């Protein structure tokens, strides 16, 4: 293990990750519209700025200047607290994600990660599960039956799918033997040995995890909490102005985090194929120093990790504009009678494969 980075560096990284999550979430709203438009043979927003790139700014101005509305009979304190909690939890989970390996300057090492904890995975799960409280509180405080129904749906849906998600994760833990996201990433590529990304060892687990990620982020086909056709706007029916903005935003931050977690767990995080060959080639043929070559690999890895994340975000949107929504009983049946047994089977399968030494 390398020496711990200075506190100052850590706070810089956290600040950058925080800003990046917000920026990416902002531009997700734009990407969502453009992708939706393209999938439906339209061109999407193109009026604000070149290619409509200033659209998120225009949206923000709109959101901030809208009337701040409180329904009568609402619990004002909780009504405000709901969206804040949704946003805080969404942002908190990005702190432990390793966005890159280590940068080396002289004897100083800089990790491209907010906080390195050996329970990173538990942190993400714990914080993401808290997110449903934001929805619950908001739905409850609105004093509106549609909001309440949306909130109840969100809660029961998240509980149902968290089980399958957690169990598909256990299979990953059986392979890696650690909860630290950095360790899991590093294990997916070790210098000198050929180590595969976890997706190769865990295809079934990945599919279960992916489906559950859709359910956890309340995205179509599992967006029953905000199901417009039945529940007006679901849990945010009564919300207006930036409080609504925070809810919509937190959904995109959640998507970003879910994409990052999937990239780290199953797609090698910041590793990319032939990175060590590239480093050795730079050192031996191009007279690079080892540290310089390593830094280049780190930066490339970070860029590629973001590429993977954006790929997943695109996939989220692609699915949203392709599939219709599940019925509520179908959603529950899928969760309890298909995904949970499948994930248990996946654990047994992984255990069997490990004990026979086929994967490690």
């Amino acid at each position, binding site marked *: 293990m390398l020496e711990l980075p200075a506190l100052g560096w850590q706070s810089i990284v956290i600040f950058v990750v925080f800003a990046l999550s917000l920026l990416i979430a902002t531009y997700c709203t734009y990407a969502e519209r453009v992708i939706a438009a393209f999938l439906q*043979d339209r061109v999407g927003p193109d009026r604000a700025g070149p290619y409509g790139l200033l659209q998120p700014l225009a949206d923000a101005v709109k959101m901030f200047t809208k009337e701040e509305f409180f329904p009568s009979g609402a619990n004002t304190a909780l009504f405000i607290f709901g969206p804040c909690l949704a946003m805080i939890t969404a942002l908190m989970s990005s702190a432990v994600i390793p966005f890159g390996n280590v940068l080396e300057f002289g004897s100083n090492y800089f990790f491209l990660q907010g906080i390195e904890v050996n329970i990173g995975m538990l942190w993400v799960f714990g914080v993401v599960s808290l997110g449903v409280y934001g929805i619950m509180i908001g739905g409850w405080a609105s004093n509106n039956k549609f909001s309440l129904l949306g909130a109840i749906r969100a809660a029961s849906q998240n509980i149902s799918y968290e089980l399958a998600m957690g169990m598909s994760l256990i299979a990953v833990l059986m392979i890696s033997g650690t909860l630290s996201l950095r360790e899991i990433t590093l294990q997916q590529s070790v210098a000198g040995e050929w180590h595969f990304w976890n997706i190769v060892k865990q295809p079934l687990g990945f599919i279960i995890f992916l489906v559950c990620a859709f359910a956890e982020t309340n995205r179509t086909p599992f967006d029953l909490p905000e199901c417009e056709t039945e529940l007006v706007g679901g849990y945010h029916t009564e919300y207006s102005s930036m409080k609504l903005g925070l809810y919509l935003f937190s959904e995109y931050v959640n998507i970003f985090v879910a994409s990052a977690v999937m990239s780290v767990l199953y797609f090698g995080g910041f590793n990319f194929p032939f990175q060590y060959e590239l480093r050795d080639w730079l050192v031996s043929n191009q007279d690079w120093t080892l540290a310089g070559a390593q830094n280049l690999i780190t930066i490339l890895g970070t860029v590629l990790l973001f590429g993977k994340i954006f790929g997943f975000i695109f996939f989220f949107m*692609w699915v949203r504009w392709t*599939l219709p929504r599940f019925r509520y009983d179908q959603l529950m049946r899928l969760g309890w009678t298909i995904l949970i047994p499948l994930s248990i089977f996946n654990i047994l399968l992984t255990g069997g494969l490990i004990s026979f030494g086929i994967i490690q």
Partner: protein
Amino acid sequence: MQPLSNRAKQVDKKPMTLAERAYLPAIFQGLSITMRHFFMKKPTIRYPEEQRPFSPVFRGLHVLKRDEQGRERCTACGLCAVACPAEAITMVAGERKKGEEGLYREEKYAVSYEINMLRCIFCGLCEEACPKAAVYLQADKMAPPRFERDEFIYGKNRLVEPVSPDNRSKRGIQLTEEQAQQLRAKMDAQLA
């Protein structure tokens, strides 16, 4: 029973097969369809920058014509207003004074002539009704959007054609057979 079209489909409620219950094949099929659409050419016309070509028989914004000597043709007979199914035209008639022969062609002329573009349905009946070949619906202009309702009431200042022949509408008496054919050819080319 005789099927009307050959597209009738037998529906039944048989239990889903395993592949259908797994959802994934159907999902991938759907995803591939939307991905194909992602790369398709978009039919959108970005309006102010790009414009769809008008048909040669398009009926757009009205114009009040002048004759070859630049005099207003309208004699305020009111036939257009009577013909108008939407009652969009109002006018006030006046008598031509001595010395105004260069301005108005007939002894009677329209002191004011207003068309309410919000009422107008652009049917062209006013054009058909006019005995003096004075009012025409242009093929190449339409009433643009505006913020206030009263701005849609077009008076003579906006309806009567400018004196300079360059600015004259291409529609009606100015459009020769040759020009019309050229316009048609251009539009066919654009539509093809």
